[in-house]
């Protein structure tokens, strides 16, 4: 069973890094949003460093949505999703593998690249590290919540817009604790670990609920 999991993850990783994959694209999109904010707000570094974690988190939420609509749709179109659901492994495992692979190609690069992008919004060292850590803990929640929307809209043409409408309200708790953890690292009344622990908890809850719900959505949409 773990061999099937690893094989599916390897397959999706290979697909994401080759032609037509959206792995690098969401990173470029992330950079794009971070770069757009100073144009809207003005080049005031004090202001930017104060709202830096918020900018990075907002960019991460939006970048997670990129490519999410293709998470199950591509496999639904070419029939490989039917093969996977007919396979002797549970559909939940397939969903888990696909979501983990998606996180490895979007969420993880975003978290790793965030210190670099933190430079653009004048974050200090602590702020950069804290933001990267919160993104590492929080982006799995975003991906798993998004996977539910992706599964629900797998067979809908132009499902991208409705996907965003469905999942964005559910991402609010992750955003709240992500930003408040990142901000509490650079001075605040709340200790850094409290929101970070809640953030990790949200990711774990999302991993369970998201996997089950996405598998149910795929199974019942037949």
């Amino acid at each position, binding site marked *: 069973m773990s061999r099937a999991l690893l094989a599916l993850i390897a397959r999706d990783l290979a697909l994401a890094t080759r032609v037509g994959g959206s792995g690098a694209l969401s990173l470029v999109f992330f950079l794009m949003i971070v770069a757009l904010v100073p144009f809207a707000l003005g080049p005031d570094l004090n202001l930017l460093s104060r709202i830096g974690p918020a900018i990075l988190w907002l960019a991460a939420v939006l970048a997670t949505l990129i490519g999410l609509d293709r998470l199950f749709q591509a496999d639904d179109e070419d029939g490989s999703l039917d093969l996977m659901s007919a396979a002797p492994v549970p559909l939940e495992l397939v969903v888990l593998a696909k979501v983990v692979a998606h996180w490895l190609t979007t969420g993880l690069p975003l978290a790793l690249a965030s210190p670099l992008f933190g430079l653009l919004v004048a974050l200090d060292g602590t702020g950069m590290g804290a933001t990267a850590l919160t993104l590492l803990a929080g982006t799995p929640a975003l991906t798993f919540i998004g996977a*539910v929307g992706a599964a*629900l*809209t797998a067979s*809908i043409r132009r*499902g991208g817009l*409705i996907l965003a*409408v*469905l999942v*964005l*309200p*559910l991402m*609010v*708790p992750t955003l*709240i*604790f992500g930003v*408040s953890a990142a901000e509490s690292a650079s001075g605040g009344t*709340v200790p850094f670990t409290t929101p970070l622990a809640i953030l990790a908890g*949200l990711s774990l*809850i999302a991993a369970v*609920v998201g996997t089950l*719900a996405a598998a*149910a*959505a795929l*199974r*019942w*949409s037949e």
Partner: protein
Amino acid sequence: MSGAPPATKPVMSSSPSLWTRLSNPSHFMRWSGTLVPWLTLLSALLLAVGLYLAWFVAPPDYQQGETVRIMFIHVPAAWLGVFFYGAMSLSAIGTLVWRHPLADVAQRAAAPIGAAFTLVCLVTGSLWGKPMWGTYWVWDARLTSMLLLFLIYCGLIALWRTIEDPNRAARAVAILTLVGAVNLPIIKFSVNWWSTLHQPASILRMGGPTIDPSMLYPLLVMIAAATLGGSTLHLYAMRTEVMRRRVRTLTIREAERLDAGRPRVAPAASLPLGQPL
């Protein structure tokens, strides 16, 4: 999935339970048809009593004056916004566990009503906020939670409208409703956390349950009237939805009949089968 569910439910078995009989769609149409006029009358009466109490009997607040009367619309609307989400979650369980067509119908009919009451709650709250807080909108925890609830309602309605096949739409919406139901307490908790971080207590707020009996009783009557009225609307909307599905099925059958009468040129292009119910 092991053990495929039976294709049709034996609804009229030898001794069906009361619940089975009541939830059979044609039985439902019969009993709800007789019930709706009475419920309408009763909720209209209750609403009239409630409005009378709210307008003429309840005293103006010593601080807020006459604007406190907005509360008699605002609080029932907030309650119903949450109430209908609960009704949708129960129906969602009915859809997913028993695959009951009436549960689909109940869920579909509840979403716009719940969204409308949530919107009424937001609008009246905003109108109340202007004279009291000096602004139409503050990012207060309760306001924000209701706004997110409204957005979730919008997403659910959008999903209903996007998926054409009513049975598939019902299952998709049911899953999303339950995911939302798991999330709503988390959203509520996190928004509370967030608002205490960002918003130190700077706004005038009603003191929760410490409300004078002279205002409490009219409020309770209004809540009862709104619940009854909302449930009547829901029943009415369910009847409409059942009829809409019947029309849909009849249309498809008619198209099939006409198609069958014609010389068969391209049988592969015939219409899909009609949906049950």
